[in-house]
């Protein structure tokens, strides 16, 4: 093959415009013995590509991939443990919450003693004064 046409192919090759057929021609040319010394580096490059293309995956490649992507058993255990701990932590909240509202309800299920706000206020006043009086007894026992 003529050196100029190879030079043209190389040009195309670097532009990534060569066809598979042209690349095969290039590879064949550089496998040959008539490669000029200034293209020695290209020869090495193409022979390297050729060599690498021969490399086949080892027989256990698939197994190794599957091994590394399979969910590991102890990871699952950690997740389960975390979920249990979390549930244990949260569960009383669910259990307590309704209980609390129930307690509050029983506390306030006690019907309003008064329907009339005026009377209710009077009762509140009385209660406040009773408390206040007792408090003062505690705060100023000598009097």
């Amino acid at each position: 093959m003529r050196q100029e046409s190879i030079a043209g192919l190389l040009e195309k090759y670097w532009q990534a415009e060569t066809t598979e057929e042209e690349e095969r021609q290039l590879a064949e040319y550089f496998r040959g013995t008539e490669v000029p010394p200034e293209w020695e580096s290209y020869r090495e490059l193409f022979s390297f590509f050729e060599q690498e293309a021969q490399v086949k995956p080892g027989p256990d490649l698939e197994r190794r991939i599957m091994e590394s992507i399979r969910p590991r058993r102890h990871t699952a255990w950690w997740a389960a443990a975390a979920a249990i701990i979390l549930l244990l932590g949260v569960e009383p909240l669910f259990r307590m919450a309704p209980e609390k509202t129930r307690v509050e309800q029983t506390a306030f299920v006690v019907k309003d003693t008064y329907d009339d706000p005026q009377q209710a206020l009077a009762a509140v006043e009385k209660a406040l004064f009773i408390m206040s009086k007792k408090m003062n007894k505690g705060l100023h026992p000598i009097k």
Partner: protein
Amino acid sequence: MSAFIRKLSVLAALLVVSAGVFAQDDAIGKFFGKYVDDSRFTIVSVSPKMFRLLSKVNWDTIPSDLRQTVTGLHSLRILSTETTPQQFYKEALSRIDMKEYEELITIRDKQDNVRFVIKETGGIVHELLMIAVDDDGFTLMSFTGDIDLDKLSRLSSSLNIKGMEGLKNAKRKK
């Protein structure tokens, strides 16, 4: 991963603790609930709803100290009885969770045996509870809301003797 687990466990522990706090809530509610239908007890209850209605009352004749105190309140519950007051006093004391309530005043003399306990967070008193036994019997009185203890203690000094007598009678009647 293990650091994550550790964080989770701490979180879980915190949740358990907070749930415990919830569970202890409202010993008074339980005490009240138990004796609500007990004919030996007299019950006075002013609900939060009624407290909101209080704003419709004519406040003109009401002293400002009292008005301010009442405005902060949320609810009032009184439970009283003349039957075996000492026994109920002891029962009430044993039922009040002192982890939750803080002791404020204790009075013990010939006529009176009174405990004031408060529930306080961040300097604000949310509940003032009086557990008392005197000649009138056993009284459990609980105010909730935003309670100003200073104002409350001053209320009685602004009250005349005649008013006090009226109060005592009124309380007995109810």
